[in-house]
């Protein structure tokens, strides 16, 4: 019976209960007309809109929301997140302390340190300390050159971080292979050079507020120099104990390079002393000429005397320093020649001792140089003030060379020092690069027996 009823119901589909054909056609035309009026003339939807529209039509909403969209988001995140991360990291690499991106840079470094410490690779950890130390040194120098107050406020922290990194490097020396030790030696030399520049920039700028920072930079530079020497000594010890991962020629090259660096440092110090001497002599001449042109001014008389006394005192001290530095330089040249001969004759341990002596002398010379620069910086503001007073009294223009701070910088950085000699002596020349950094090229003439 049910089957019969169902069959009867099915027959209703075919024509029995159907709409009139004319009504269907009319209604169709009416619908089409309404749709055409409602549709926009052109479809301006974007590709993504079309894509989502197609997803929404062909796939169930649950699939779109639960699978397609998360999947699409994942793809987007997978593509965008790394590029954002690397973009941020790359952008932050150039940032300096006190800048917004700097914290991202340090955070990345912390992650690197954590990952490497988890892996437990000693060599990789040392390498990271070296990389970070180089970064901190360059940051310190850039901050000093930029002289931005906000960044300068962070300089002390950066130097402290650098000190920690150098100490970490120093600690790892004994456990490192000869190759790694040689790498440490090269990098700490580089750090020492950068810090030397940073310290010179601070001293020449002559700002009393940065005196403490200059002292910190100098202390860190000395630390780096000590680690560099320690690396040379360790390299020699390891080589003599049979670690042949670094060839004998490379060990000798490392020793020669250490000798060279000591000589370079001494030469730079001597240049600074000579520069200060020249500046003070020029300043003396300038003051003398200016006071001769303004003899009738009673107001200038007393200040001329005070300034003249100060300049004479400073010049005489600088003269003594210059003479002493000349003697020290000659001594260094001699010691360096001896060191090179020891290296050439394979007396590596003795060469190391000689380098130690050279380092001590170089540090002594640096002290003399720093003191001389400081004394000169103390007098220069008085000269500037005197010049200003004279300019207020008369319209005469100073004919002598400038002794302002910038002039002093120029003098320091354009001095040329040359020591020529016979084999076993040092030939040294200096030039200046675009960032006012003294670039010293010093060659030790060695006798080679073939």
């Amino acid at each position, binding site marked *: 019976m049910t089957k019969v009823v169902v069959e009867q119901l099915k027959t209703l589909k075919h024509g029995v*209960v159907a709409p009139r054909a004319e009504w269907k056609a009319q209604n*169709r035309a009416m619908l089409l007309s309404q749709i055409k009026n409602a549709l926009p003339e052109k479809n301006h939807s974007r590709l993504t809109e079309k894509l989502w529209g197609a997803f929404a039509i062909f796939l169930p909403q649950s699939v779109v929301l639960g699978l397609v969209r998360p999947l699409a988001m994942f793809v987007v995140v997978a593509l965008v997140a790394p590029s954002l991360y690397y973009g941020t990291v790359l952008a932050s690499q150039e940032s300096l302390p006190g800048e917004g991106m700097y914290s991202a840079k340090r955070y990345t470094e912390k992650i690197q340190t954590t990952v490497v410490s988890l892996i437990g690779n000693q060599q990789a950890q040392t390498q990271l300390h070296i990389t970070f130390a180089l970064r901190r040194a360059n940051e310190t120098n850039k901050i000093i050159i930029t002289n931005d107050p906000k960044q300068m406020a962070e300089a002390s922290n950066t130097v402290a971080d650098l000190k920690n990194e150098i100490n970490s490097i120093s600690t790892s020396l004994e456990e490192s292979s000869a190759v790694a030790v040689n790498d440490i030696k090269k990098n700490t030399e580089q750090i020492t050079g950068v810090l030397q520049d940073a310290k010179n920039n601070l001293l020449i700028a002559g700002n009393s507020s940065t005196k403490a920072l200059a002292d910190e930079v100098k202390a860190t530079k000395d630390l780096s120099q000590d680690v560099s020497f320690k690396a040379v000594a360790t390299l020699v010890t390891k080589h003599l104990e049979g670690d042949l991962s670094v060839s004998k020629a490379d060990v000798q090259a490392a020793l020669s390079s250490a000798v060279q660096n000591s000589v370079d440092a001494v030469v730079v110090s001597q240049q600074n002393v000579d520069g200060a001497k020249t500046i003070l002599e020029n300043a003396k001449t300038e003051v003398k000429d200016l006071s001769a042109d303004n003899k009738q001014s009673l107001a200038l008389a007393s200040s001329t005397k005070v300034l003249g006394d100060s300049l004479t005192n400073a010049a005489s001290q600088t003269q003594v320093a210059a003479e002493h530095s000349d003697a020290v330089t000659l001594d260094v040249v001699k010691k360096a020649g001896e060191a090179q001969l020891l290296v050439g004759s394979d007396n590596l341990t003795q060469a190391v001792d000689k380098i130690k002596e050279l380092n001590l002398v170089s540090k002594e010379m640096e002290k003399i140089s720093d003191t001389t620069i400081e004394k000169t910086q103390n007098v220069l503001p008085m000269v500037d003030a005197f010049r200003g007073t004279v300019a207020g009294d008369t319209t005469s223009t100073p004919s002598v060379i400038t002794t302002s701070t910038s002039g002093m910088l120029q003098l320091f950085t354009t001095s040329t020092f040359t020591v020529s000699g016979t084999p076993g002596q040092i030939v040294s020349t200096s030039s200046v690069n675009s960032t006012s950094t003294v670039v010293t090229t010093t060659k030790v003439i060695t006798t080679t027996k073939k």
Partner: protein
Amino acid sequence: MSGALSDKLDLYRLQLQNNPESFTKLYDKYVDQIYRFVYFKVATREEAEDITSEVFLKTWQYLQEKKEVKSFSGLLYRIARNCIIDLYRRKTAKPEELLEEKLAQGFEANDAGKWLKTEGVKLDNERVVSALKKLKQEYQEVITLRYVDELEIAEIAEIVGRKSIAVRVTLHRAIRKLKEFLDQ
């Protein structure tokens, strides 16, 4: 191509390519079914035509809002049900046009009955239609959707907003009731 996929393709052309012909294709495909669905629930052929027309218009408006469409046929039936409910409400608001009164007048007395006769419908079909009209709405719906329009249980469940098992039970009871009316 399956019916559902064909519908989706037409919807894609309509919504994203703004092709109005796609909607008329869908209209041609479903107008008879919707008309029949409506016809068994209303008193006259004119009402069936008006409601059917309204259903397609409202469906078009719904599509314009870019809402989700799981099944185009399901959407049409849902809108048709709502339109019929609206019609009943309007009639309830006017006592002289109560549906019960219309139904009380019997199938033969209304326009639809006359129209069926003029169309030369067979007596058996008349009896079936008459019996269907006597069934309550819920039974009418599932019987016409299942046996006249030959929809799957799942589709009917979606249209009436119930679970498949509930639809099966309702269908079973509806057929039993229809047989009772036919036997009377």
